């Protein structure tokens, strides 16, 4: 089978003050099979924009140009907004960083999940939709799904909210899930749970996962393959298990500036950015 996602030479630019354009993503090419692909980089390196461009949810004032962008054989470059709309939710899903801002605050989480189900299948009877919603809450390891079903988002903890979001996204069983910093707002203990849920979904349902994060260690443990981005370009693409053999000075710099529990107490090495990293790769 061919790749699930193919992107070639993606550029995303935003207008700056003097009327010109600043490239935020510059020539990103990647392919994704049914695997876990990690994208790491600092704020502003273009990792989230890449995910959003693929989903087609960039603001209209962003200038996008791409040679090829395909999802499961569908050419996204020439696809109509209507077709792309029909892909979102059903076949491509996205999990955002902060559940506080991504759930509807005046609707119980159960209703929100039911709504997601009904958008996909308008003829499903209410009782079945509710059963399905309760099932998905259980699948994302929420204890007492019946009780949580009728809670409002502000009554949930961060970890629970994030799991509800994941449930809402995977209830339609998308083929591709883009997770944009899904665990950054969570505690380490909850993070492990959320990751194991995502892992289970990828393995069992054969989803493709794009995992956007700035946490190198996390990505190297969790993903199959890692792409490192800097200033809108891919500087390195490496097997996750071999991340610690990375050769690019930027990747090495990111790895070495992390404190370790049993690391040295000398001042941490700081990243010295070199102009050449942002140049032609």
């Amino acid at each position, binding site marked *: 089978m061919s790749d699930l996602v193919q992107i070639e030479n993606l550029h995303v630019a935003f207008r700056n003050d003097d009327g010109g354009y600043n490239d935020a993503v510059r020539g990103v090419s990647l392919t994704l099979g049914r695997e876990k692909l990690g994208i790491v980089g*600092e*704020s502003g390196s273009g990792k989230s924009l890449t995910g959003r461009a693929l989903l087609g949810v960039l603001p209209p004032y962003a200038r996008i140009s791409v040679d090829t962008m395909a999802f499961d054989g569908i050419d996204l470059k020439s696809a109509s907004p209507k077709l792309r709309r029909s892909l979102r939710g059903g076949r491509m899903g996205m999990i955002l960083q902060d559940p506080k801002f991504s759930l509807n605050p005046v609707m119980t989480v159960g209703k929100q999940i039911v709504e997601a189900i009904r958008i996909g299948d308008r003829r499903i009877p209410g009782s079945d939709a509710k059963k399905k919603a309760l099932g998905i809450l259980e699948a994302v390891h929420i204890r007492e799904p019946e009780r949580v079903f009728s809670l409002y988002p502000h009554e949930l*903890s*961060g*970890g629970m909210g994030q799991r509800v979001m994941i449930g809402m996204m995977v209830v339609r069983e998308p083929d591709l899930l883009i997770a944009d910093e899904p665990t950054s707002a969570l*505690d*380490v*203990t*909850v*993070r*492990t749970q959320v990751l194991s849920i995502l892992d289970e979904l990828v393995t069992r349902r054969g989803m493709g996962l794009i995992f956007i994060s*700035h*946490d*190198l260690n996390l990505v190297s443990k969790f993903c199959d393959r890692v792409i490192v981005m800097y200033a809108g370009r891919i500087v390195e693409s490496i097997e996750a298990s071999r991340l610690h053999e990375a050769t690019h000075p930027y990747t090495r*710099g*990111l790895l070495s*500036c*992390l*404190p*370790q*529990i*049993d*690391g040295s*107490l000398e*001042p*941490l*090495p*700081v*990243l010295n950015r070199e102009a050449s990293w942002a140049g032609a790769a």
Partner: protein
Amino acid sequence: MLAIGNLNVEFSGKLAVRDTSFAVQPGESFGLVGESGSGKSTILRTVMGLNATWNGSITVDGTDVRKTPRKQLAKVVQMVFQDPYSSLHPRYVIGQQIAEPMKINGIANPERRTAELLELIGLGAKFQFRFPHELSGGQRQRVAIARALALSPKLLLLDEPTSALDVSIQAEILNLLNRLRKELGLTFVIVSHDLAVISYMCERLMVMRNAQPVETLTREQLRSGAIVEDYTKALIAAA
């Protein structure tokens, strides 16, 4: 420098901190670790007088915080918050924000001291006319640190000082904090959920869960694995 005895903090009938005691020596760096809702930030906020309903004892540098007027307390202890995007006033230039505590306390020559502070935290005096939105997250956190240092406090309370920042910027801020502690002889209490950061920054740490302390460890105990409680072991395994 800081002594907390049998502290209870209550929010609408629910205890957010239960029967917690610890002491921090002058010059020491003490870490508080635990999951969200375990009460670690609440302790810092209570020390600063930001919570009204508490009982127990809190003494900072030998004086009872209940009996110390706020202005005087502010000269001894200052706090740096997690999110540099919301802890700075969006419409004040940063020089003004750093000078504000000095003006309130009638300290002479706030302008010169502001410039000195900006040099100290590695931004340079030319930054004083910038607005917060013109700075990156790491630069804003430096400004928040400079403002906290304006009154030359002895004790700095740091609530997740780097968790909103990129790892590369985190290293810069941690190095800055360590340098300042050495140069100015400060005492730190650092709240973090990242054990690696705490292990790097703190000589001693207390693990909290469900509003209560689980155990207190030295850095050596943490590193050598001389840990008693299962919860701490789970935290380390997850890190």
